Structures are given as structure tokens and as C-alpha cells.
């Protein structure tokens, strides 16, 4: 045995030496513009960065691809690859003037023809993205510095639509091969997408020829890490300098390791949908369910502060969102409403509650909501299942209660799309089968309103109407978290439609 000990000692020394070779970076100091950073992102690409899929927004958030417009903090259209825009004498057409001096990552200049090629591609795919679907979209060059975008009917929000990540502009060479566009070294953004390793990682290099403020790091390694604990530990160990989507339980731990953690609202609502085709056609029953649910408790205790209680469809992520907290549960009112609708201990209301497990908080919330409803005298049969399998029944209104998590901005900072598809009488995603002429008339006004402030006022009014009509229970607005360590400059984007990486700068060691 004694003869073995030196071997063990040697092995320990070897491991220590090996480990010492890869010891992490030192402490943070001033900014290092030539630094390299590694970031851990939550969601890997699902369609090889295809623009027509939700991956389009990914290229935008990485700072690789850019759109004709972007949005400012007040969710108004702002210049992007286009510096200005105007509706022409024909109200169906908008003219966008392109930014001069912009070059693609392959060195070719941004021209009207390049924009026509890019937008023409995405408009011609099998399933064009929501931002331009079913509006008779077409695009044409207009002289040496502008494009004309025409729709079948006058469109009040074309500048806003053009900020959608699905409408990024790549160099013409990206589209020359047929099939899906080539995303490597064909964007215009502050970062060049240099390497893609499937769903595992990607490498970005700074675009030194960028037309705007230069990116904060010379090189960024993007790691797609689906496990939240891995992202948190990576940040704590220094392997990651930035990570999004930290688990609530790890936030304090990450902070104690010296990382900055930003918590900011997401443009998302967890909503308890109530089918008006089955049990909940009676508004008193919907109001009873609303009164039975203690939203502040769900946010503070069940989700441990990872969400804000919701009082309306829109929350603090958007300028027109409601920030007043909702009331707690009122069991007496809930029971009274149930009794008024003919339900009580002798004839209890029994409802099926469905949800899906893709977002881990959903089954937990559904269980807690079920328990709260039971306290009010509503019997709940909870089912957690695959959304794709549930969808046909949901679309047909063949459900009682469905806990859904829905982004209310989808692709650009305008809520008309969600308000129309989810709540108008003919809405394509109107799961609750809610139908109100007053609501539809309100939404109809959006089609003629181009002023952003006026539109936002209408969005808020629509949300209030939904609350009054007890259309679903807006349960919570989830919060996003992002941690940074060894980097500065993170700017939270509650709207989720702007680049997050270019502003990050490595601290000097």
C-alpha cells in the first residue's frame, strides 16, 4: 500500500497543476474595449436562425442583423437601417429612406435592391412571419436611397412592423444559394456572426466598420445553456460574464459572488383563460374565479418574487401597462357570486384546469390556483399535458380553464396583433370565445390610428375593458433576470425587441 501513495500524491499534484492552468480571470477594473466575453443564453436557436421563425429575433438580440427601424424606450418607432419614413400620397405605401454608409459584414453596401431582396425573401416563404402576413406586403426600390413598402390596405403601423426581428436585412449573397439564407458574415450589426456550432454555441466578432457605436467586446462566445442552474454557476465561477434567465433561488447566491443581477419586467402575462363556450359563459362565474385567486400571494410566495401580480393584460414592461397591484382574494365575494349563479355546497362547480409543463412555473401556479379555487368551493381537476396535443380542443373552446403564458408583444412593440387575435369575435387565437361588439369597435379604431401615443391609449382602454368583462384572470407578469460579472453596460430591454449584447464591455483585469 505504501508504494501506491506517491502515485496518489502525484496524481493530486497533476490535477492541481492542470487546474491551475485554467484558473479564472482576476478582478474587475476599468473597461477593456478589446476584451472577450462569454455569455450564457437560455434558448438555443430552433430553426438555424431562420428569419421566418422566432430565431429571427435571436439574430437581432445578438446584435448581428438589423431592421429598417427599431424602437425607443417609449415603444415608438426609431431609426434603424432607415433614417426616416413617411406615408406617401397613396396611403397604402410607405417610403423608407436608407441610412447612408452602411455596409454588410461581407463588405457590400446596403442598397435599396439589397433591402428588396431581403424583405422579398421573407415575404415569399411558406409561412411569412406575423409582422407582414396577410397584409398584401410588397417592397420595391425607390431611387438610390429608399424603398417603397406597399400593402393591400392602408397600414398605420408599417414603421413599427419594420422593427420586427423577423425582418432583418442580410447581404444579397445570403440569399443567393437558395433555401434558407446564409447568416454567417452577412448582417450589418455591431457584431459579425462568425461561427455557429449547432444549438451549442456561436462566436461573434466585433464589426469594426459598424455605422453606429462600436460593440463593447472584440469577441463574444455565446453558449446556449438550457439549464438555469448551469447559467447561475457559470456566472458565479467566472466562466460566464453574462447570463440571462437566472433561477430565482440562485439570485442572492449570484449576487454574493460579486455579480450584478438585473430584474426587469417581461412583456408576458400568465393568464387563466376561461372558456365561454363551456362553463364560463356566465360572467358571474368568471368574476367568482377572479375573486377567488390571490394574485399577490401567487407572485410573492408561489413564484418567490419572480413575477409581479397582474391587474390587467399589460404590465410594467410597456408604457401603457398597468402597474397598480391587483386586490387579494375575496372568498366571500367569490362564494356569493357562485351562489348567485346557482352553485353552492349542494351543487358545486367542477372545472377542468389544463396547463403545460414547458415553462416550469406553470404546473406550480396551476396547482396553487386549483387550491385557491377549491377554497372558494370550486372543484378543480388539474391536467398538465403537452400543449400541441391540447391545442385542437383549446381552439375549439372545449376546455374550462387553461393557464397560458403569452407574450403580448410578439414581434414588435405594438399590441394590436395580440388584442385582435386573442379577444376579438373573429380572432384566430380567441381561445375563450369572448365576443363583445364594444371591444371589437374599440379594436377597429386601431386600424385608423397611426399616432403611437393614441394607439397606446387604446391598448390600455382595451385592457381595462377585458378586465371589466372578466375575460380571463391576468395572474402574473413574469420578471426577467440577467446577471453580469466582469462586464459593464447591460441595458435591460423589457420590450424584448432590441440588441442586448453590443453594450456589454469587459472590465479590465
Amino acid at each position, binding site marked *: *500500500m505504501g*508504494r*501506491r501513495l506517491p502515485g496518489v500524491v502525484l496524481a493530486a499534484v497533476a*490535477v*492541481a497543476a*492542470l*487546474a*491551475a*492552468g*485554467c*484558473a*479564472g480571470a482576476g478582478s474587475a477594473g476599468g473597461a477593456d474595449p478589446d476584451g472577450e466575453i462569454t455569455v*450564457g443564453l437560455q434558448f*438555443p*436557436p*430552433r*430553426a*438555424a436562425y*431562420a428569419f*421566418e*421563425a*422566432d430565431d*429571427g429575433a435571436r439574430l437581432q438580440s445578438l446584435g448581428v442583423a438589423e431592421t429598417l427601424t427599431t424602437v425607443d424606450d417609449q415603444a415608438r418607432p426609431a431609426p434603424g437601417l432607415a433614417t426616416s419614413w413617411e406615408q406617401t400620397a397613396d396611403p397604402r405605401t410607405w417610403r423608407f429612406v436608407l441610412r447612408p454608409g452602411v455596409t454588410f459584414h461581407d463588405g457590400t453596401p446596403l442598397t435599396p435592391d439589397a433591402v428588396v431582396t431581403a424583405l422579398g425573401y421573407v415575404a415569399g416563404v*411558406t*409561412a411569412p*412571419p*406575423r409582422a407582414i*402576413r396577410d397584409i398584401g406586403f410588397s417592397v420595391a426600390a425607390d431611387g438610390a436611397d429608399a424603398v417603397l413598402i406597399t400593402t393591400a390596405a392602408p397600414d398605420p403601423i408599417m414603421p413599427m412592423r419594420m422593427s420586427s426581428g*423577423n425582418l432583418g436585412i442580410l447581404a444579397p449573397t445570403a440569399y443567393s444559394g437558395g*433555401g*434558407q439564407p446564409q447568416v454567417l458574415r452577412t448582417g450589418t450589426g455591431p457584431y459579425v456572426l462568425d461561427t455557429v*456550432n*449547432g*444549438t*451549442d*454555441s456561436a462566436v461573434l466578432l466585433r464589426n469594426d466598420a459598424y455605422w453606429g457605436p462600436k460593440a463593447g467586446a472584440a469577441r463574444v462566445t455565446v*453558449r446556449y*445553456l*438550457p*439549464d438555469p*442552474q*448551469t447559467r447561475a*454557476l*457559470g456566472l*458565479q*465561477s*467566472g*466562466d*460566464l460574464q453574462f447570463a440571462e434567465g437566472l433561477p430565482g433561488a440562485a439570485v442572492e447566491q449570484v449576487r454574493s*459572488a460579486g455579480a450584478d443581477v438585473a430584474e426587469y419586467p417581461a412583456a408576458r402575462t400568465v393568464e387563466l383563460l376561461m372558456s365561454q363556450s363551456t362553463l364560463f359563459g356566465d360572467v358571474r362565474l368568471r368574476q367568482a374565479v377572479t375573486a377567488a385567486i390571490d394574485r399577490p400571494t401567487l407572485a410573492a410566495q408561489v413564484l418567490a418574487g419572480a413575477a409581479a401580480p397582474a391587474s390587467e393584460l399589460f404590465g410594467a414592461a410597456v408604457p401603457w401597462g398597468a402597474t397598480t397591484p391587483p386586490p387579494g382574494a375575496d372568498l366571500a365575494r367569490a362564494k356569493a357570486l357562485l351562489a348567485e349563479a346557482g352553485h353552492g355546497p349542494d351543487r358545486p362547480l367542477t372545472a377542468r384546469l389544463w396547463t403545460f409543463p414547458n415553462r416550469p412555473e406553470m404546473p406550480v401556479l396551476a396547482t396553487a390556483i386549483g387550491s385557491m379555487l377549491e377554497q372558494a368551493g370550486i372543484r378543480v381537476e388539474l391536467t398538465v399535458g*403537452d400543449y*400541441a*396535443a391540447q*391545442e*385542437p380542443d383549446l*381552439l375549439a373552446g372545449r376546455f374550462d380553464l387553461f393557464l397560458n403564458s*403569452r407574450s403580448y408583444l*410578439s414581434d414588435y412593440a405594438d399590441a394590436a396583433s395580440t388584442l385582435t*387575435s386573442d379577444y376579438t369575435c373573429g380572432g*384566430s387565437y380567441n381561445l375563450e370565445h369572448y365576443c363583445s361588439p364594444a371591444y371589437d369597435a374599440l379594436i377597429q379604431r386601431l386600424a385608423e390610428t397611426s399616432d403611437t401615443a393614441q394607439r397606446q391609449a387604446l391598448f390600455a382602454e382595451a385592457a381595462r375593458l377585458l378586465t371589466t368583462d372578466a375575460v380571463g384572470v391576468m395572474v402574473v407578469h413574469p420578471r426577467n433576470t440577467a446577471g453580469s460579472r466582469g462586464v459593464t453596460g447591460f441595458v435591460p430591454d423589457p420590450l424584448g425587441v432590441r440588441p442586448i449584447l453590443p453594450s456589454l464591455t469587459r472590465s479590465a483585469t
Partner: protein
Amino acid sequence: MLLRRLLPLPLLLVVASVVAFALPRLVGGDTDSVVRAVLRARVASATPDPQVEAAVAAQFGLDGPVVGQYLRWLGAVLRGDLGLGYVTRTPVAAQLGDALAVSGLLAGCALLLAAATGIPAGVYAARRPGGLLDRVLSAVGIAGVSVPEFVLAPWLVLVAAVWLGVLPALGWGGPQHLVLPALTLAAYPAALAAQLVRAETIDVLARDHVRLARAKGLSEGRVLWRHAARLGCVSVTALSGMFVAGLLGGSVVVEVVFGIPGAGRLMYDAVLARDLPVVQAGTLVIVAVAVVAGIVVEVVALLADPVARDREAAR
């Protein structure tokens, strides 16, 4: 010997192909819901559109009867065409090849580490059953068998990467990235090997040929390692085939926690993204590789064990 064991492989692969093809569809409910899930990943829309669904289904070979889909897929596989992944639109064969190379290296290191620690621990523990060393090693062994990977991995990261800062918490590329994942994967087989070797070595130490060796005046070390430990390790060698098979496709937790682009992580991502070509071909290839690797290890174990070798030859 090897060929005879490989004979049932084609039948096994046909069964595996049916399971690999049917499982994602059974989990998703029906073909339509699979199409919808695939569509949702490919198309930025929450609202289904029957025309778009039909076009995407045709594009991805999800149209027509399920049996026809299976036969089309199997025919392509037999021609060596595993198709393109839905997510990356790159050949599945290349994706699997790269991922299996990573998992193979990780599995190999983990098994070497398990053998290098588990076998000596078992042998030393067998010297004095019930002694202090035996009890300590038994306790460590129980912990190694009972602590799951999803608990052990974060703890190792916390200690080695966060507190001590001597190893990376995640990633793949250098030898330093192997240490923590290999340690995590090695814990269970090392603990099991230690228990097996201990039990068998205690048994062998009581046999006549060992008593004879001692009577001849051989040192305790020689007796232990030359005569007892060799035989005590035979069952562990046979068992390692099972571990190879499991580690090649089954190290999902470790690969996800450490962000390693291996076969487990590939399959995990593919299942979440409903990347059917990767899930189907991945299941098939991993089963095939694991079975072949298991058989090869089993044959090696047989060759190392003279008694079993004679028994095999007599069949």
C-alpha cells in the same frame, strides 16, 4: 465468439427503429400535434394555418400515413441517409458523429477514472473486511451509488469552480473541461466496482490457491494483486460493457449541466425542439453503438477470464 453475439443485432435495430420512430409521435399525441409542434419551432406564429401546416408537413416528410412515413425513413436510413435535422438543417449523421465522439471521450475518461479508483478501493477494502478502511470505503461507496448526478454535478462545480476556482464550471475544449464531468460520471461505476471487487476478492482470498500462495511465502501484496485481485476484477470488466452502453447515450444530465456538446445534450435539445430526424436517428445509432460496444467489452471480459472462456468454448 464476437460474430455470434452480433447476430441478433439487425433484429434489435429493427425493433429500435420502430421504437425510435413511434416514441416521439406517441408522446406528442398524434401526427397532427407533432406537425404543429414542429411548425411552431419553424414558424413565428401561435395560430395554426392548415395550408401552412400541410406545406411544412410535406417539406419535412410528415405527410401521409404513419406507416408510409416510417418506411420512407427506414429506406433512407438503410441507404445511409439519416436526413437533415429540423433545427440546424445540417446532416444528422455529422451531428451524431461529432456528438458521439465527445460522449465517447467523456465516457472513456469516466470509466478509466472509475476503474482507477474503484478497483484498488475494493481490493484494499477486502484485505481487512470490517476494518477502518473497509468501513470508510463502504461509506464513500454508498454515497457514490446513491447521490444522483444532478446533485453531485452542481456540488462539484460549486467546490472546484466557484469556491476553489481551479476548474471551469462548464464548456468543452481542453483537458480541464473533462475533469468535473468525468468525476461526476465516474462516481457511480467507481462505487459499484469497489463493492463488487471487494466482495469477489474476499471470496477469492479464502480459496485454496491463495492459501497455497501464502504458504509458499509470497508477500501479502503479491498474493493480493497477482492472485486475488485479478479474479476479483472479472465481473467488473463484464459490467463495464453495460456502463459503456449507458454512458454513450445516457449522460444527458452531465452534458446538460456542464454544457457539453455530446450525444446526450444533442438528444435533449432535439427532444425539446421536436427535431424528429435527430431523435429518431440518434436513438437508433446510440442503441447500435451501445450494443456493439457492450458486446465487445463482454467478449474482452470473456477472454480475460479463463474459466468463462472454457465454458464459452464448450457451447
